[in-house]
């Protein structure tokens, strides 16, 4: 195994519930993700892609199989999160509604082993906010429930831009922002990637987005990775019927989309 492998999953499975209600969220999935790679996990709702993201993040541990980060299982989660950070799917549920947004962005620095100085933290938060097209003054003293979904999502991204992690697991990072802001954010993310050599795992249902940004695409369906490969191969020459479905369902201005 080459040494630049960041994530290595071998036959991992994850179940929820017990007894009759047991649900398999991830079923015998194997993959490797190399350092500096951008991988997109694409699939419909409920296919287990978010659970897979949480396994990579170390929030869930797989019930069977082995999952390695840099060749070692994730044991010390604090060390893991020092390098691997995430944007969660639901921006509304991500912030504690009892504390102001800014204080929570600053709290994020708690995970870093080398904590920057207070002024430095303020500076990095301001920079990160500007990177997501939000004026720092606009969220001054604001609480999470006072922001819109798109704004909250940008706050989550700002958190990443402030922390500058080595690995980013982004679960639907731009699902609630408009196309223009999305392009800006992706642009900035790519810049950050170049700058830091970041590894990015996108979790998305948008195969179009995945095509533009990824080095590789994993297609997930019903807890399994049904296809994996370069974006060109996956989109031009899909092997799995589920990939075909995903591709067909991309809305196209010149084509009738919803079949009557």
């Amino acid at each position, binding site marked *: 195994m080459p040494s630049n492998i960041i994530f290595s999953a071998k036959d991992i499975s994850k179940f929820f519930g*017990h007894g009759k209600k047991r649900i398999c969220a991830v079923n015998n999935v194997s993959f490797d993700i190399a350092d500096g790679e951008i991988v997109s996990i694409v699939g419909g709702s409920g296919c287990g892609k978010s659970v897979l993201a949480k396994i990579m993040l170390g929030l869930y541990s797989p019930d069977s199989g082995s999952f390695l980060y840099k060749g070692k299982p994730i044991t010390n989660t604090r060390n893991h999160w*020092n390098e691997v*950070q995430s944007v969660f799917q639901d921006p509304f549920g*991500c*912030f*504690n509604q*009892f504390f102001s947004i800014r204080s929570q962005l600053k*709290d994020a620095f*708690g*995970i870093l082993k080398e904590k920057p100085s207070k002024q430095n933290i303020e500076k990095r938060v301001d920079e990160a906010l500007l990177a997501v097209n939000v004026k720092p003054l606009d969220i001054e003293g604001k609480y999470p429930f006072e922001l819109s979904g798109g704004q909250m999502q940008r706050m989550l991204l700002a958190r990443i831009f402030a922390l500058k992690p080595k690995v980013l697991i982004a679960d639907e990072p731009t699902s609630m922002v408009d196309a223009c802001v999305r392009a800006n954010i992706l642009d900035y993310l790519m810049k950050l990637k170049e700058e830091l050599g970041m590894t990015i795992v996108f979790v998305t249902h948008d195969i179009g987005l995945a095509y533009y940004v990824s080095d590789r695409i994993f297609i997930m369906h019903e807890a399994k990775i049904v296809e994996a490969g370069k974006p060109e191969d996956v989109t031009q020459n899909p092997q799995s019927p589920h990939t075909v479905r995903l591709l067909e369902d991309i809305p196209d201005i010149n084509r009738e989309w919803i079949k009557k």
Partner: protein
Amino acid sequence: MLKLLKNLIKEPMFVIGVFLFLTTVFAGLLGPSLYTPQPRSEFGYEAPLAPRGIEVDLSKNTITHWVVHRGDTLYAKETIKKDSLGNMLNNTALAKYWIGTDNLGQDYVALLLRGLQNSLYVGLLAGVIATTIGTLVGLFAGFKGGIIDDILNMFTNLFIVIPSFVVLVLVSTSFPQGRSLTLIAVLIGFTTWPWTARSVRAQAASLRGRDHISLARINGASNLQIIFKHILPYLASYVFMVFIMQVASGILSESAISMIGLGPLGEGATSLGVILNTAKNQSAITDGLWWGIFPAAIVITVIVFALYLLNNSMEGVFNPRLRK
């Protein structure tokens, strides 16, 4: 925290509730030591407003006032002498007691203050016990989930199914010699926790999987920080409101079992429920001796009402989404 308080003070319901509750608490805490009770009357059930019979003897210039009790027996009787102009000479009874006396001639105001103190004590202790057990069981069940949750849930449901009042009555009867206020409070506390456990469990379970907990974790927050910063604020309002409800229901439960004669027994264990029970036993209700029943009932109503007002007004403030 300060902001929360500011928001609370803006709420008129809260202010009224706090005012009523603090008034009762101060009356209960300080009343018994500040108020010097009138000496015991030789005649029970006196009241300034409702003598049940007046006998005027013009030749002796006396008015005799009595209260009929238990059929035809004269229970209380007091003679007031008046001079020729009709002024009272020997006013022993009519102006002395604010409310009146009980059947033993004890000043009702003093009794009520003492009863209030004891009832508040029982309610608070029962509330603390029920809330603590309920919150612990609920948190544990909700956060652990899985099989532990199932077992604790079953246990909680078992307690909910058994009517707590029946348990209270049965356990109370097994202590015929003496039942202290503390014993009654503990009994109430141990029988009323399941509802707290249920609501806290539901809250905790819904919080467990929330993204903000995950985010706090990847922010490097310790378990204690997560509990105090990211879980407690979400649960605190519930726990606190449940606590208020538990205190109110503790006071009511105590009154209820005291009313049927299974409340605290012994010297100084006069609770509001015991006052009601005594009045009932001395057939104050059938004889229309309202001052034996109403003042105590009103005091209970005021405390419980104040607690409900507090609970209601907090709902809107503790949940920031409901803030106006």
